[in-house]
């Protein structure tokens, strides 16, 4: 193969990836950093005389061991997953009918309500945690994971309702009307016509609700104290950041393992998610 042909071949095969590489570098570098820090010895990590991007000393599993054996990491992971799944179910159960009503039905104040719904998402949690404390206490959920299950929909619900409204609007009104002419009630039309069509939207809303819940910190801090009830984002910082002492290796191990469930959720629903995003963008 001549030099010229080889060069052309390389350009054809790898050329399209070139514009992608700066993006990939920016997106993947934090994960790479987490990965090597999770397995670096402390003495290697603090050594400023060597290039920080690779190991100078042999890798170690000490940080992962500390995370798994010295903390309640697996319990926190389990709590986060349970809370995430329950919040997704509650959010979808409430957001779907709300989105349908706001998108399809015309009633007094519907426009204001839909705008207000979205604006309520913008209220910072730091302003809400004191009044929500009263609510949590009233429900008898103080210091349990149910406090978070009850509180998290306060920020997932407005966003997901607003998101789902866009999807419901993409379904032609005529399809639903045809179903009703054929004998469906409004509820049946919603269940049998609207829901199957907006599945990508439901998945998108579910993923958003899950990730928003999974990464939440301030409410978890306020409403939960017992170690066994902590979530991953809260538990990791509690046990591995001690004042001016940061356990970087274990923190990075925690971040890496903690990112896996989200990565899996995204990986398995990527096609629906992308479809959902683009469909939601167009009416």
């Amino acid at each position, binding site marked *: 193969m001549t030099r010229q042909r080889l060069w052309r071949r390389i350009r054809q095969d790898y050329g399209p990836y070139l514009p992608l590489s700066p993006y990939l570098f920016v997106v993947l570098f934090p994960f790479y950093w987490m990965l090597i820090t999770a397995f670096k010895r402390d003495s290697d990590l603090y050594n*400023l005389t060597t290039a920080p991007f690779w190991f100078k000393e042999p890798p170690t599993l000490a940080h992962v061991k500390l995370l798994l054996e010295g903390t309640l990491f697996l319990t926190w992971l389990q709590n986060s997953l349970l809370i995430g799944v329950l919040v997704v179910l509650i959010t979808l159960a409430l957001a779907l009918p709300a989105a349908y009503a706001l998108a399809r039905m015309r009633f007094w104040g519907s426009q204001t309500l839909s705008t207000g719904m979205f604006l309520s998402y913008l209220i910072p949690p730091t302003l809400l945690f004191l009044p929500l404390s009263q609510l949590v206490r009233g429900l008898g959920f103080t210091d349990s994971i149910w406090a978070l299950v009850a509180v998290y929909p306060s920020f997932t619900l407005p966003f997901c309702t607003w998101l789902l409204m866009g999807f419901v609007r993409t379904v032609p009104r005529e399809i639903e009307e045809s179903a009703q002419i054929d004998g469906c009630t409004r509820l049946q039309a919603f269940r049998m016509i609207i829901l199957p069509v907006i599945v990508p939207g439901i998945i998108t809303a579910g993923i958003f609700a899950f990730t928003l819940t999974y990464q939440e910190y301030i409410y978890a801090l306020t409403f939960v104290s017992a170690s066994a009830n902590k979530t991953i984002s809260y538990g990791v910082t509690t046990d591995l950041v001690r004042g*001016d002492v940061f356990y970087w290796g274990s923190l990075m191990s925690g971040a890496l393992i903690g990112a896996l469930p989200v990565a899996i959720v995204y990986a398995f629903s990527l096609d629906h998610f992308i479809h959902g995003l683009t469909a939601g963008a167009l009416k």
Partner: protein
Amino acid sequence: MSQVSRRQFIGIAGAGAAAATAFPHVWIRPAWAQSKEVRVLAWSHFVPSYDKWFDGFAEQWGTKNNVRVIIDHIPHLQIPAKIAAEVATQSGHDIVQLVGSGTEKWSDALLDVQDLADKLGKKYGGWTPLAENYSKVKSGTFHSIPDFFIDFPGLYRKDLWTEVGMPNGPDSWDDLHKGGMKLKAKGSPIGIGLAHHDDSRASWRAIMWSHGGAEVAKDGKTITYNSKEVREALKFNKALFKDCMTPEVLAWDDSSNNRFLASGRGSWIHNPISAYRTIESSNKELADKIYVQLSPKGPAARRSFANCRAYGITKFSKSVDGAKGFLEALVDNYREGAKASTGYNMPFLKNYAKPPFPIISEDPKLKPLEQDAEYHFTTGYPGPLTPAADEVYQQFVLVDALAQFCTDKMDLEQTVKWGEEKIKAIHAKFA
């Protein structure tokens, strides 16, 4: 045989997993409620072995006294938000740890514990003035039981300071400036954070107090920031920043000076011994070169900053006697706790403040810390730790003023005027 579809299998398996995960949360709670319990909100101690001891001690005391003691550890910076939420709902922990902000701030929510403070004071030779300042409220009674304070000594590289003729480290701030200049030229600067984090507001106060300056007078009300002493301290601080440090200190957090020393580049930091302890566990060779000294003295005196810890009993506690019993036992076992903290916890009771100290007196490197109770003061010095003084501390007023002066954004007079106005505005809010 009936067939189970893939969808059904996933549904059943998912429901089963969710039920198994949720089961303990549903089932265990009612059993908890039946037992007599004391719940304690505490920080995650800088030294993990202390938390291990503390949790074990609580369990042992609980078993002996038939009380279930639950210790909840959270990061110290988040404790005020947690207490605020509990006060708002009048429910939560029986005992809350007060981390740095003093007792007055929470006095409305805490029980008067003068009886217990008197009992303990009598048993252990009386409370130090620092303890009284931290735990007494306006009415003059204890509303919290002092636990320990965190000192701010100097940590220095003996090998590097020997090269500049100070083998025992810089005894005065002026020595630090002189030696620091030479060491920076050799590639080993000193480091004191000048940013929004705990260590910054502690260290720069230590220098100001050592120069005879203060933000407020002994009455806790008269603002004294506009003074000759504060001006001298500001000028010195600027020289120290420019001549002995690198601008990275403007972006530091509490862990940065630890990393700076651990990297082998830093020659001196102003920090509790946690930095030394961390290096000891990760780089023995470097740790051997690091020594601990008294916080340097200034033209007026040797004064450093104490970050205090105390425990208050909440008014909504349903187990006041249990809470008092637990705190009494904790103070009785102070030396055991200090040992578990590897010399990090410093005493508040006069008898405990007499050598020999656990760990500290046994280690020649740490021996200078035996004197720390004598020259450590806290927010609001020379006055009481009022909510106004705490607010000045929390809002980083002194750090911001100094940072603007050091980076030439303001001249000396502008800095003093800016700082004074900010401090006066905060105090006016609480007047």
